[in-house]
């Protein structure tokens, strides 16, 4: 895909270029409301067919282009009870009835399996029926979350309205210390700006410390743009992006213009500067991701559960990080370590690398590769438990009863804390 404005003299941000292309305009101005053609709509068992089908049927309408739809079963699988079974069955029946060519059933969490199957490419305009849909922004894709009724509008018309956002550019210089990762960068930014600090604008992650990250770490940044309250969390496409996409089967022709998807040098951004070199592991205390401080402020908080899961914190790179900490050790007595890998492919690769065995040997209980306890939909945590989790949200009541206390941290920090039975600084253990 080529930005229409690539030769124009009006400098544009990455967000503007992506929206202009989808709107069929040479350029767009901040604040303008435009109608975009949607290249891909993703929804899952919870937000998708069970909500969409009754509305589509009531309208007598059809999906505008089934080839542009990806359905993922990840929230209610494996089904824990009759209600969950019913919801998943509705999704499977709809997949057949609508003749959807792209259905990913019980093979991982939507935001991870979508790029893993090559569905995202730089330059696309995508929507997802899930708030962590900004994850797609790591691929130079404009992707954002919408609710079920708005998804109905998309699948009927193929269009969505967008108000062209300002770009808040997070410039990260320096180099992360060992044991400090994208999750820590995000928690740090959320603490600084707050959970609505993104003001539903576009956040762009840039600078040498961002471009040094692998794709799954970049996905963690874009993923938690949701917790910044941004509409999209973008990263310019580069060689790392192209190498990942090529490896998952995206052909070279589809990528030949990938490097054009970046913010022009003279484009107007609000810039914020961070130094990765001095960043400590970060921990968000209950009940908000914005309640973040350096890990040192929370050491000695005793724990009952350590959870490595979700699209945010259980991808292959996250599992590898946990294994580096846990290798040859057992978790502390009284601590339950739960690991729910983000996708079947990531789990299989972690198995081949011996990573899963390291986790099991350390005492981890391996849960299904689905959203699970993160959304409070699957297995939840017991009354009064203190949890450290690699997930994205620690709202009251999210992972179980309102009495559950959830601390958010990186997979490195979760693993280190599981070993000591209390929140710990992973740098002391590497």
């Amino acid at each position: 895909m080529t930005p229409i404005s690539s030769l124009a003299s009006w400098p544009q941000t990455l967000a503007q270029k992506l929206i202009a292309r989808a709107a069929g305009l040479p350029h767009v101005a901040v604040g303008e409301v435009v109608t975009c053609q949607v290249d891909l709509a993703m929804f899952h068992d919870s937000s998708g067919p069970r909500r969409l089908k009754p509305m589509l049927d009531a309208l007598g309408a059809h999906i505008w282009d089934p080839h542009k739809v990806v359905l993922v079963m990840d929230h209610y699988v494996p089904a824990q009870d009759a209600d969950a079974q019913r919801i998943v069955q509705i999704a499977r029946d709809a997949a057949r009835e609508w003749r959807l060519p792209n259905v990913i059933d019980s093979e991982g969490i939507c935001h991870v399996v979508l790029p893993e199957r090559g569905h995202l490419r730089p330059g696309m305009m995508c929507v997802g029926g899930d708030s962590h849909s900004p994850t797609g922004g790591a691929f130079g894709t404009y992707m954002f979350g919408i609710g079920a009724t708005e998804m109905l509008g998309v699948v009927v018309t193929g269009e969505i309205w967008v108000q062209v956002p300002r770009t808040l550019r997070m410039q990260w210089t320096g180099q992360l210390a060992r044991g400090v990762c994208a999750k820590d960068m995000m928690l740090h930014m959320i603490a600084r700006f707050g959970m609505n600090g993104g003001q539903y604008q576009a956040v762009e992650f840039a600078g040498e410390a961002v471009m040094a990250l692998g794709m799954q770490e970049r996905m963690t940044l874009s993923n938690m743009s949701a917790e910044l309250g941004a509409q999209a969390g973008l990263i310019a496409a580069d060689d790392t992006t192209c190498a990942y996409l090529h490896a998952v089967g995206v052909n070279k022709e589809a990528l030949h213009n990938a490097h054009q998807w970046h913010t022009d040098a003279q484009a107007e951004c609000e810039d914020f500067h961070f130094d990765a070199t001095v960043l400590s592991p970060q921990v968000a205390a209950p009940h908000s991701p914005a309640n973040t401080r350096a890990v040192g402020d929370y050491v000695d908080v005793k724990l009952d559960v350590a959870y490595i899961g979700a699209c945010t914190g259980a991808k292959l790179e996250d599992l590898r990080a946990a294994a580096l900490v846990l290798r040859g050790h057992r978790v502390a007595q009284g601590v339950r370590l739960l690991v729910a890998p983000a996708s079947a492919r990531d789990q299989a690769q972690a198995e081949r690398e011996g990573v899963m065995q390291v986790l099991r040997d350390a005492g981890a209980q391996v849960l299904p590769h689905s959203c699970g306890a993160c959304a409070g939909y699957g297995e939840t945590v017991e009354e009064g438990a203190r949890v450290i989790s690699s997930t994205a949200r620690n709202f009251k009541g999210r992972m179980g009863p309102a009495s559950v206390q959830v601390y958010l941290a990186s997979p490195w920090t979760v693993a280190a804390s599981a070993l000591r039975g209390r929140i710990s600084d992973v740098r002391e253990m590497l």
Partner: protein
Amino acid sequence: MKTSRVWKLGADVDTDALAPGAYMKNGIEVIAQHCLEVLRPDFAAAVCPGDVLVAGPNFGIGSSREQAAGALVHLGVRAVVAPSFSGLFFRNAFNLGLLLLTCPEAEQLRDGDAVTLVPAGVQRDNGALLPCQAIPDFLMNMIHAGGLMNLLRLRSQGKHHE
């Protein structure tokens, strides 16, 4: 002019509080019974159609689950008044026909106050006006139609007649 009773909430009211994950398997009538129970256990049972929610900044942060707005619609909440909203919640609310008023001074209002919604903002019973940001026409059309579903229905009927 119809007056509305104010239900006052704090800042950062999230979608898990509005539509708790544990009840997401259920229909909106069940989810609505548990709406805001972690913050105001009495809310769902006591709220009356036409009442107004008033909250601090960042109302509706969190999930894309539109049941967060749908539960308020189901309970008959007329509008939510707050200094700022989550962008995703904002879209969902208008898509479901729920009016959101962005009101910098919302926090001056107290629980139990009687207010009147007027075109320029929220009027207190002493006549004082708390101004609200203007809402674009295409979003007000969504409110008048009762949500996007009804707009799509009208549009499909329009095509039908052509």
